[in-house]
């Protein structure tokens, strides 16, 4: 099977480059040939957050290169730089050894770089062929649908995809749509580097195997593939080399044949020294939160029977790759998603499916993952946001009328206590910086000395000082005997703060690890979907 591919004169067309040196990707390259792609010192920051820090990466023609790392390690930003979707602050991209400027997706397409995004880029209300027409690099004035149809038919036949060109995209399955995303990139272009950001996340096993077969075909045609993956098993299924990123840096690049799942998992989660912030284990308190066999139907990732307990005086971490049911669990516990089965009890009271107001009156604080969408009404004043959903429980309302002067006074007190930095609580909360917005949420949720805190990625996007402040607040809850369930993508954060860490994968909890002296490799393996292999060791 041949793949659309136009070789340039003098282009290296050899076997996949196997490099032996793990530490430096550049040094390890086959010196006789120039690699297809070389990234040197790529740095990209967003405000105070460094997404990529001095990243080097080398990819050879005809190799499938895995990019591994936790959420937020900088993988997606790196490939977005490559695809011209964002610009690096500094660093160099070399293509066939020549420095190139990738200023826009059009530049990337001209070089032969195609990217398949994590999220579907198809227009649902259009047909398959119309979507292909949209993706043409230089659209003609008139739609050439007849021509497009024959191309689509040729592509779908070649790759064995059963999709009619005139089918509307919204009638297709997730797998079919994913295929179209891929075929659209391969359509009519001389693709030399294909970037796939978690292409298999929502596919069935057989669809996954089809995609991998296609990737191997492309590799045989000399195309280089960068594959962002989370499942360790997939690295060993199709990849030639794997680069592990962590906190914006490249930690190591390894030929897959010379590494193991354990090594990659260990590199992914790091071997940081024990930086525990939480003090000595507190004496066991009574159980505050009990979740048993919680299930959902119709969510993005359904819960498949989650059971856990949170005691007073402990912080329980919930680790896992994004999209494994953490969000759905948090929503169930926050009262905004109704589980289909199972129970949630708070201090013995059954609160399954209870509305948020009832949870509030039971002392359950919720720090939502999405500050802007779920946590705050951005156009409303700061003091009003401090009482959002709590004006009743704070007795600020009498016969429907709000005591606004008392509400302002209380908000000012809480804002001071939680270090919200602003001159004027009458301003819309949307004008505050991210850190201050999160402090407004903490002031609201923790101001009444909550008994149980459900915190979902509470430090995402915050600078160091604000992050530290969030940690202090969560630890204060713990030391006064409250319980915290902390959902986070940052393993360092979990290990530093928590008493024990639960690992979630595929909508269930696949293991529990005590945080002190935790076996990071074990957590990494559990997160990477290898729980069958390690379940004997994990404390379940």
């Amino acid at each position, binding site marked *: 099977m041949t793949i659309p591919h136009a070789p340039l004169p003098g282009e290296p067309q050899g076997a996949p480059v196997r490099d032996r040196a793990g530490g430096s990707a550049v040094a390890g390259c086959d010196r006789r040939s120039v690699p297809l792609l070389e990234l040197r010192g790529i740095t990209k920051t967003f405000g105070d957050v460094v997404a990529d820090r001095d990243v080097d990466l080398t990819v050879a023609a005809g190799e499938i290169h895995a990019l591994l790392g936790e959420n937020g390690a900088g993988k997606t930003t790196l490939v977005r730089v490559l695809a011209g979707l964002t610009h690096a602050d500094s660093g160099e991209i070399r293509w066939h050894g020549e420095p190139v400027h990738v200023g826009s997706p059009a530049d990337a397409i001209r070089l032969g770089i195609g990217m398949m995004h994590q999220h579907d880029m198809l227009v649902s209300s259009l047909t398959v062929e119309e979507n292909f027409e949209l993706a043409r690099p230089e659209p003609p004035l008139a739609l050439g649908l007849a021509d497009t149809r024959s191309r689509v038919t040729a592509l779908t036949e070649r790759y064995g995809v059963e999709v009619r060109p005139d089918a509307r995209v919204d009638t297709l399955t997730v797998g079919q749509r994913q295929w179209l995303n891929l075929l659209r990139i391969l359509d009519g272009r001389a693709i030399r580097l294909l970037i796939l950001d978690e292409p298999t996340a929502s596919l069935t096993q057989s669809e996954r195997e089809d995609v991998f077969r296609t990737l191997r075909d492309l590799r045989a045609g000399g195309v280089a593939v960068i594959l962002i993956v989370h499942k360790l098993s997939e690295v060993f299924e199709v990849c030639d080399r794997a680069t592990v990123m962590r906190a914006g840096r490249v930690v190591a690049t390894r030929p897959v044949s010379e590494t193991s799942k354990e090594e990659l998992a260990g590199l992914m989660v790091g071997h940081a020294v024990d930086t525990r912030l939480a003090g000595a284990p507190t004496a066991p308190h009574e159980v505050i939160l009990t979740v048993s066999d919680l299930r959902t139907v119709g969510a993005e990732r359904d819960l498949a029977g989650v059971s856990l307990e949170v005691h007073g005086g402990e912080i329980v971490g919930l680790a896992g790759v994004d999209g494994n049911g953490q969000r759905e669990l948090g929503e169930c516990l926050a009262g905004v998603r109704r589980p289909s089965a199972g129970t949630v009890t708070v201090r013995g009271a059954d609160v399954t499916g209870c509305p*948020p107001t*009832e949870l509030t009156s039971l002392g359950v604080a919720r720090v939502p993952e999405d500050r802007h969408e779920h946590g705050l009404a951005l156009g409303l004043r700061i003091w009003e946001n401090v009482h959002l*959903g709590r004006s009743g429980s704070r007795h600020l309302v009498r016969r429907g*009328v709000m005591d*606004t002067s008392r509400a302002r006074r209380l908000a*000012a007190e809480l804002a001071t206590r939680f270090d919200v930095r*602003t001159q004027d609580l009458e301003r819309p909360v949307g004008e505050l910086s991210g850190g201050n917005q999160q402090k407004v949420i903490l002031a609201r949720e923790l101001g009444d000395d909550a008994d149980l805190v459900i915190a979902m990625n509470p430090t995402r996007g915050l600078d160091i000082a604000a992050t530290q402040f969030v940690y202090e607040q969560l630890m204060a809850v713990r030391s006064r005997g409250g319980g915290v369930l902390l959902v986070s993508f940052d393993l360092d954060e979990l290990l530093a703060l928590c008493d024990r860490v639960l690992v979630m994968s595929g909508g269930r909890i696949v293991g529990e690890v005590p945080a002190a002296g935790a076996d990071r490799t074990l957590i990494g393996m559990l997160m990477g979907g290898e729980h069958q292999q390690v379940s004997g060791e994990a404390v379940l």
Partner: protein
Amino acid sequence: MTAIAGTVRRGDAIAAAAVRMARATVANGLIVILGLLVSAALLALTGADVAAATRALVEGSVGSPEAIRQSLIQATPILIAGLGVSFALRAGLVNIGADGQLYMGALFAVIVAVYGPPLPWPIAPVAMLVAATVGGFLWGALPGWMRARLGMSEVITTLLLNFVAFWIVSWAVHDPLHDPMGGGYPWTPEVPAPARLPVIRVAGFFLPSGLLLGLVLAMAISFVLHRTHFGFGLRVIGDSPQAARWAGIDVSRLTIAALAISGALAGIAGAAELAGNQYRLSDFFSPGFGFTALVVALVGRATPSGTVAAALFFGALAAGGGSMERIAQVPASTGLVVQGTVIAILVASRSAAARSFSYRLRRRLVRPDVGAA
């Protein structure tokens, strides 16, 4: 420059609020003036005598006590209906059905006043207003229910219910409620004298009591929005339905309530117009009051005070437009041109480009400390 919130004194907060309000008023005033200028330019293009037209406009709207009375009478229905549209807008709901709700309110009111038992003043006008409230409430609650329970866009349903209300009224005034002594016009008998809303004379000026009712309602709405639990919930929904859901606010219930109250206010506007100006319900009762109310609410930025100011302006424009036609032979529909121009400029001024420009300007000039912490 960063101060801790707790140190802010109440006086400062009030001063800051006053500054913000003044700034919004100036901004909207500029938009209206720009709209007038553009309209004048359009008039000049048609070869009209712009100077004479302007004179007629000013004289016909504020030139005499009688002109002012006309302006205030014109302002009354668009003020009350405009308050209704504003109220829904604060909950994030676009009520384009104020005209239909106004017709339904007037229909309920005329039934009580003309076909009910004869009532003395002031019970009669109160009974009319109550009936109109019920009519408008129901006609607003219906799209509210469709939005909350069936997920249908209130923009579409309120718009289409205008036609339903109009044709119900049209049928009623042609057949069951038709006045046989009415000179053949499709209208109802006149509202009896004890049910009419009087014009109050204050210091040589005439104030329609419907307008006073509108001012009281504006204050009441301001109280509801800013001082009650219910109003807080409405504003949260209007700002972020998701945040409202997470905070445990019953979004469906408040959506229905917001549109029902919005409709009730439009219904009251219908009764005020009926009992204060036209006295008969006909199928030419509303020259688009409900749509002018939408303009009024948008120009007034959905605040009660802004709505009052905008309603007075557009009321004056309507009264002045009539005298413009009589004196300067300029079509009265020029007033509609002004409305349209103002809306176009308003929308443009709130576009993303304009907003980001003014945001950058403000950050640089006015509040260098915001967002710095």
